[in-house]
Each structure stands twice: as C-alpha cells, then as structure tokens.
C-alpha cells in the first residue's frame, strides 16, 4: 500500500475506485499563412471566442442554478479574459506581423500571460493561471474542433486528475463522485471551492497522485489525516468503512438528537413518523426521534407459521408498539395478505395476476374469522392508548363500509363482554388503488384520515410491475399522473377536514420532500433512519416556498426535468442535500 500526503481542500472520507480524468494535450503546429489568409484566421479567432463565450455563459447559468450565484461568479473573470482587448490585440498582431496560424498565435499569447501570473508571489493569483488555462483549452477545442474527455461512468468513483478546472469540476455528475484527488491546487483553488460547496471530500496538491495511482485502483481519501491510500488491504478498508460511518454519523449528529418536532421555517408543524415492519424495529422509533408510527404492518404476526396468532398475542404486540410511540399515535394496518404475501401454502390461491386478486381488504372481508380476531385485538389495545386503524387496498366506498361494519360488530361484542376500548378509535383508508384516489371525495366523508401508499398507487396507475426489470424503468413517482392523483387526494381530504399521511416509499425520498410538503401532506411515514434526514430538509424551507415549488412542479410533464428542478430548489436551501441523498 502506498500512502501519499496532500492538502485537505474539502473534508471527508471516501473509499472507492480511482477514475482518471486525463490531462488534455493539444498538438499545436506553427504554420505560416499567406497574406490573403490573415482575415480568415482573424475570423476564426472571433468565431472561437464567441462560441466559447456562449458555452461559458451556459455553464455559468447551470452553476448558478445548482450551486447559487456566488459560485457562478467564478466564471466572471473567465468571460472577461475572452473579451480581453490586450490579449486579443496581441493575438491579432501576431497573426498579422508574424503570419502565423491562429492556434499558434493564441497559445503563444496565452502562454505569455500564464507565465507572468505564475511568477507572481501570491498563491491566489498563481492559481488564477489555472483559470486562464481553462479558458485556453476551451478556445483551442473550438479552434481544433475537438471535444473534452468527460466522465462516463455509471458507478460511483473517486476522480483522480492532474488538475481539475472549475468548468470541468462544475460539469461533473455529482451523484457519481465520491471524492477528488488532484496533483496540484491549494485550498483556494476552484476545485476546492466547488468540492466544498458540493460536500465532496477532496485532497489537492498530492503532487504524484496521477503517477502513483493507476486507473481502477481502490483508493481511500482521508482528509482528516490529509492522506490518500492506494490499494489498501481488506483490513484497512474495513477500518476505513467504520471510520466513514462514524464520520457520517458525526456529520449528521448535529440534527439527529436535537429535534423531535418537524416545523417549517414559517412554523407549520407536521408529523414525521416511522414505518414498522418487524417488532425488532420498534427501538428505532425512539432512536431516530420519529413522531409515532405512521404504518404498523401486521403481516409479521401471520407469516411464517402454521397456526394463526391469537387475539391476546396480537393485543400484546399492539400495546407494546403503542407504548413505544408514547404520546404519538400508532396507525395499525389490518393484514395485507395476498399479492406477494400469503399465509401459507394451503391458502395460496393459484392466481394469474395476484396483485389484481385476492389481497388486502378483499382477503379480510372474505375471512371474517381472521379479520375479527385482529380487529378485536386492535380495539382492546386502543383503550387509553393512541391507536388508529387503517384498511389497506380499499378500491371503493362499499369495501370501506363493509370493513367498518365488521368493526362495529366487534365493538358490539366487546361491549357485551364488558371489555374496554376507545369508542372513537379513528378509522383511516389507505389510498393505493387509483379508483380510491379518484373517489376520495366519497371515501373522505366516511374516513377519519387517509394514508397514501405510493408503491401500489404507482404500480396500478402506471400499469407497471416494478419487479419486471424490462419495464421497471417506467415505475416513476414523478409521473404527472401520480402527482395529480396525490394532489387531488390531499386537497379533497382537507376540504373534508381530515388529515392525510403518506406511508409509501416516496415519503422518505429526500428529493420529493419539498414537493409533498407543498402539496400539503400532513404526515410523512418512512423507515426510521430516514426520519432525521427528511426532518432536516423540511426544517429548512417555509411552507409558503414549498407551495410555490409544488405549483411549479405540476408544470413538468417530464419527471427527469422535474427531478432536476426539485434538486436545484433543495440544494439552494440545504447544502447537505447531496450528502443526505448519498447516505440514506
């Protein structure tokens, strides 16, 4: 293993494969030109300068959008260099008097200026020589009609380069960059500035990085020690994986334990709760400061056994969950068997299309023997505890009424048996079938709350089986159809004075947090580790701004563009967004 020292330009730890961004070499030949070609060469110069200017303005706009105006100002000096009359006059003069081709005249003039800058006794100004290099490359590419080498990797990598120009750094796909190592540069270099604003660990001034590191080597950047390790052994990688985890935990720690409430900047309060699938996860509710349980899945009680869980056994589990949630509520979803989950082999119907078949509430309504035991257990647990019931897979009002009728029967039985329960236990409808979303106005009148299940809603609305890899790419929350359905459900719920939660995966996706907040979602329920992250995002925006973003979002018919828009809006307000997304 080789260990190289460098300067920490942006702090962090990264472990990954080295990916080289090569030094761009131009072969510039000196040619003598005939007198008649002087005007042609000058025209070529002008054309190249104009096109480079256009390119830089485009890049500046991109950076302004993604990183903010102050970062975009980096390119102001670039633009002025292009328009610099001393430089341009110097080039033209060389073309005219020395009769040389424009490429040669240009690179000679640039070289002269660069040398002047490099001689200066000032680190900042010396680094500006890189700016001039960057411009020169852009102009030369235009003159020579070549294209730059760009990052073409789909996996996450650590960039290794002799130097990274600001414009190249800004055009890299951030999502796939774990870290940056460069031979040259200092803490005020643009590479450093951009790496810091993107929160990508960067080690600069490593001097021999591109010599010692070979493409696809596994490398570790540790800016805390200011070192890069080349091809470390398993043991060291393990150590660093641990160190990285610690580092991330520490980085996130500033908000994990701090906040238990979810409040926007303009003081709108909402709830971020946990999705619980197994009892082992209950301890995470407290650990990640979730505000209760927004989706308590009960399938675990039924699956993987031959008999059925008794009323008492279920009762104990529900009470336990509710005690963990303390003052917050637990939304218990009645069993959602079918689809891809079955009680046991003998019950497994031979269905052609199980997701359109005997599942969710349909199963429960046809097996009141099983359904009633569960409802009685939930009701008994609700006594003096904050418990709510939710029915899955409701496709229309008749199913909701039928389920509620059975619930009433259970209540009546318990009354007769003198068993106590919450008489006003709230009953919610899960909105995951398009027909339910489209008749939300009718369902809202007989529900105490809604919870949107996005996975099924997307699968059924877009007719996509996400487990089928040939069509999985079509599974898309950002589809305008889904956004419209969700907005509609939330609006209708509010018109009917009931609250709406979301317990599908999307509720825990950082990129959609502002959008869902803006739609007016009252409760976000997600895997517990995501709670502090989404809470952090929501605490950094006002509800009013989120509403504006949501209104704008509905104008996007293409979800790729929508995602870019949402990312940009989040990055403007939450600098750690990329870090949060990278370590969910």
């Amino acid at each position, binding site marked *: 293993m080789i260990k190289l020292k460098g300067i920490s330009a942006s702090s962090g730890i990264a472990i990954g494969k080295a990916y080289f961004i090569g030094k761009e070499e131009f072969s510039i030949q000196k040619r003598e030109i005939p007198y008649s070609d002087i005007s042609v060469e000058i025209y070529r110069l002008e054309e190249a300068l104009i096109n480079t200017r256009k390119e830089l303005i485009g890049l500046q706009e991109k950076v302004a959008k993604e990183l903010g105006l102050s970062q975009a*100002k980096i390119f*102001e*000096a670039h*633009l*002025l*260099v292009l328009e*610099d*009359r*001393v*430089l341009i006059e110097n080039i033209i003069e060389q073309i005219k008097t020395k009769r040389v081709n424009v490429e040669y005249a240009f690179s000679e003039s640039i070289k002269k*200026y660069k040398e*002047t*800058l490099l001689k*200066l*006794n*000032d680190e*900042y*100004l010396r680094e*500006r020589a890189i*700016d*001039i290099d960057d411009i020169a490359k852009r102009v030369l590419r235009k003159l020579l009609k070549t294209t730059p080498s760009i990052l073409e990797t789909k996996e996450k990598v650590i960039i290794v380069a002799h130097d990274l120009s600001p414009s190249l750094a800004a055009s890299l796909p951030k999502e796939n960059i774990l870290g940056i190592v460069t031979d040259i540069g200092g803490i005020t270099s643009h590479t450093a500035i951009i790496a810091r604003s993107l929160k990508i660990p960067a080690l600069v001034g490593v001097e021999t990085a591109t010599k010692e590191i070979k493409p696809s080597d596994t490398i570790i950047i540790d800016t805390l020690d200011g070192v890069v390790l080349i091809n470390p052994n398993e043991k060291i990688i393990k150590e660093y994986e641990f160190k990285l985890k610690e580092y991330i935990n520490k980085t996130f720690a500033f908000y994990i334990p701090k906040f238990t409430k979810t409040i926007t900047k303009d003081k709108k309060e909402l709830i971020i709760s946990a999705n619980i699938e197994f009892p082992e996860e209950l301890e995470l509710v407290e650990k990640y400061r979730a505000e209760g349980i927004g989706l308590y899945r009960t399938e675990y009680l039924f699956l993987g056994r031959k008999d059925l869980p008794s009323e008492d056994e279920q009762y104990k589990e529900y009470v336990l969950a509710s005690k963990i949630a303390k003052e917050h509520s637990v939304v218990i979803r009645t069993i959602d068997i079918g689809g891809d989950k079955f009680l046991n082999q003998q019950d497994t119907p031979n269905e052609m299309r199980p997701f359109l078949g005997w599942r969710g509430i349909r199963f429960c309504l046809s097996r009141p023997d099983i359904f009633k035991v569960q409802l009685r257990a939930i009701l008994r647990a609700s006594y003096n505890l904050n418990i709510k019931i939710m029915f899955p897979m409701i496709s229309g009002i008749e199913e909701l009424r039928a389920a509620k009728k059975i619930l009433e029967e259970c209540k009546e039985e318990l009354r007769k048996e003198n068993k106590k329960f919450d008489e006003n236990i709230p009953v919610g409808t899960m909105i995951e079938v398009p027909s339910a979303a489209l008749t939300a106005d009718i369902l809202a009148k007989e529900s105490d709350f809604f919870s949107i299940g996005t996975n099924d809603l997307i699968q059924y609305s877009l007719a996509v089986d996400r487990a089928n890899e040939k069509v999985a790419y079509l599974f898309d929350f950002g589809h305008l159809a889904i956004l419209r359905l969700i907005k509609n459900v939330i609006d209708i719920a509010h018109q009917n004075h009931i609250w709406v939660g979301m317990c599908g995966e999307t509720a825990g996706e950082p990129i959609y947090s502002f959008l869902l907040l803006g739609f007016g979602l009252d409760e976000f329920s997600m895997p517990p580790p995501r709670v502090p992250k989404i809470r952090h995002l929501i605490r950094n925006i006002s509800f009013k701004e989120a509403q504006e973003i949501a209104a704008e979002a509905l104008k996007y018919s293409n979800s790729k563009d929508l995602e870019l828009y949402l990312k940009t809006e989040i990055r403007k307000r939450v600098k750690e967004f990329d870090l949060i997304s990278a370590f969910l």
Partner: protein
Amino acid sequence: MLRIEEEVVVNNKHGLHARPAAIFVQIANKFDSSVMLRKENETVDGKSIIAILSLGINTGAKIHLIIEGEDAKEAFSELKNFLESQDD
C-alpha cells in the same frame, strides 16, 4: 481633453485578484476614457483583465490610476472608490 493621474491605495481584501479585477474592468469599460494602471515602473491597460492580473496587485499596494478622456472625472471617482473600498 481631461487627464487625471493620482496614487491610490488598494484596500480590497485580497488585492486585485480575479474577481475584483473583473469588476474593475467592467467599471472601466463603462467609460469612453482610457484607463491605465501603473505599479512601480510598469503601466498596463486598465480595461484588460489579463493585464491587471499580470501586475499582481495585492492589498495595500500603491498604484497610479491614469485616466484620459471626456468622462475622466466620473471614471476616476468610480474606480478610485472601488479600489479603496474594503469589500471583496
């Protein structure tokens, strides 16, 4: 034609590096007058960013601002103001 020459102390936090130099050039280019900067024995075109950068003007440096033209007065006062201000 008006000609103004005066010594100015650069107070800008980092001197005339890329960004302030860029702003300086932008201001200078608003005016018809010619703008020259002299540091020690070297005089350069104040409307050229590369020329300014090559002077290597750090904070606290004393430079001569030489302006010639119809609007020299206005140009001088704006540029002097900028060089003497503390902002980056």
